[in-house]
């Protein structure tokens, strides 16, 4: 694959109507090589009574330094998809490739950050929590690991709290530890599963801002799951919109120009409305008619 192929702008599809057609229009050009490639991914899991299909034939590609957001209504399988990328689920159909290699199980090249605060080890201090994966995976050792841990803890502004146990931290601080811990490993891709959903609105906003600042400094590749349109536009540079149950690709949109400073601008509002329509077009139609009839 030549450089020129990589440099080509990626298509923004899903907008050109085709609401009746199943697959979004594909470009004739060959699939661009992404850092992470998801191809025809169908995921199923079992509950005690049902076999649930979470996603159905999802294709997507995440490139280096993307802030790739997976957005969809609850139950669209976006978290399941992230877990599959993390290696915690085996695809029923399709492939997940990281740097061309098939993902077969969990590994430290794809560090995950979860929504729940319990992801931190309560028996380790902040510093030990950050050091732990580096030492376990044997990726960084001794002084190198310590230096990296201290530097990343400083980046997330927790230097004062580095010898404190997680139960003494606030929700936002715990999340920062989780992010620091994942980033210290320098994973190929950082996977975040609604990381700020359990935080209060003010803290959430601050954390989004800090995440973007970190990204400016380090330029890591991020795959981020959320159900908030606003968060998707602020955090994301690319947004994959999934349809409701089972999750299928509805659109892939560009949001690289939009962030905190553009909240409230017409462009932000327009993208937000567009995503809203893509997500809720089926639901809102009949409901609105009902309301009209009542009025």
């Amino acid at each position, binding site marked *: 694959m030549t450089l020129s192929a990589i440099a080509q702008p990626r298509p923004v599809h899903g907008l050109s109507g085709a609401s009746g057609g199943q697959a979004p229009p594909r470009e004739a050009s060959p699939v661009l090589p992404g850092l992470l490639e998801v191809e025809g991914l169908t995921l199923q899991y079992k509950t005690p009574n049902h076999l649930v299909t979470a996603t159905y034939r999802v294709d997507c590609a995440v490139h280096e330094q993307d802030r790739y957001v997976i957005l969809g209504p609850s139950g669209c399988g976006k978290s399941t998809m992230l*877990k599959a990328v*993390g290696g*915690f689920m085996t695809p029923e159909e399709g492939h997940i490739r990281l740097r061309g290699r098939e993902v077969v199980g*969990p*590994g*430290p090249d*794809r*560090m*995950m950050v*979860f929504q*729940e605060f*319990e*992801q931190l*080890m*309560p*028996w380790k201090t902040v510093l030990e929590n950050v050091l*732990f*994966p580096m030492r*376990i*995976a044997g990726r960084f050792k001794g002084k190198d690991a310590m230096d990296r841990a201290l530097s990343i803890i400083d980046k997330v502004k927790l230097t004062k709290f580095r010898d404190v*146990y*997680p*139960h*003494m931290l606030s929700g936002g601080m715990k999340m920062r530890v989780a992010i620091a811990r994942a980033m210290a490993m320098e994973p190929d891709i950082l996977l975040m599963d609604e990381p700020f959903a359990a935080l209060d609105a003010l803290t959430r906003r601050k954390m989004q801002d800090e995440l973007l600042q970190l990204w400016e400094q380090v330029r890591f590749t991020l795959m981020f799951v959320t159900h908030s349109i606003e968060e998707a536009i602020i955090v994301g540079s690319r947004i994959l919109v999934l349809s409701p149950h089972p999750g299928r690709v509805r659109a892939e949109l560009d949001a690289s120009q939009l962030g905190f400073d553009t909240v409230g601008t017409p462009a932000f509002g327009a993208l937000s409305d567009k995503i809203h329509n893509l997500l809720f077009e089926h639901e809102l139609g009949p409901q609105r008619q009902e309301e009209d009839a*009542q009025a």
Partner: protein
Amino acid sequence: MSMATLGRSEGAMLARRPEFEIEPIDASGIGEVARPLSAMERIVNNEAVRKVAILIALAIVWELYARWLNNPLLFPSFAETVATFVADISSGTLIDRVATSMRSLIYGYGTGLALAAVLTTVAVSTRFGTDILNTLTAMFNPLPAIALLPLALIWFGLGIGSLIFVIVHSVLWAVSLNTLTGFRAVPEVLRMSGRNYGLKGLRYVIHILIPAGFPAILAGLKIGWAFAWRTLIAAELVFGVSSRSGGLGWYIFEARSELDTARVFSGLLAVILIGLFVESVIFRAIEKRTVQRWGMQH
């Protein structure tokens, strides 16, 4: 149901009230914002102080009752018991007996823990293992260890082998059951984090499951210890004559046959003191350094 019936009267408007901004009022009138509690309040808040007070009260009641009863054969006084206790400790008899008991206890407890570790590791890694552990625990947990003593005597004869056998039985099931419960209670995200770092098998158990399930494991260790201690004393009361030096149970049994009631009491006192020491000193220290420090238990 339309919105109008849910709301209040439709035409009513909220009255507009003026907004305002002021400096917070002066709070110096309340004095110090954080004031230290008085010495008395702090003493009463200290759990150890309260417990010692209860113990002293009990000792006084005991002493008074014994003097009123005035029958040392049935109920020796606190002073007599303590005198015998001190005398037997300084002569070395009691220490010898305790050492003998402790040796059996440590062998038994250690073996029980090792077996429990193997059993739960197998149980947590496979579903079949879980079924095995659950079935065995359901069968053997309700079976009092002392009920196995006759069988132990047939298999291992009079001696430390039988003691260890019954202690292992009393420790193993309680500890395994609690450990497995602790492992099961580990939050899913913590498990996933561990696997995310590439932890598998034994390393996963050691680095994630054991520390994460430690509150339940510690509870299991405590229950196991209490069972083991009781079983040991009971078993020694039944036999313990065989070996050259008997244990603490044998000390009590011997005193009873000599109608030396103060010595029986002194033996019981030793049983209680050791039990208290292990629970409120050793286990308490472990708790403080682990689960409480980690905020997993308050």
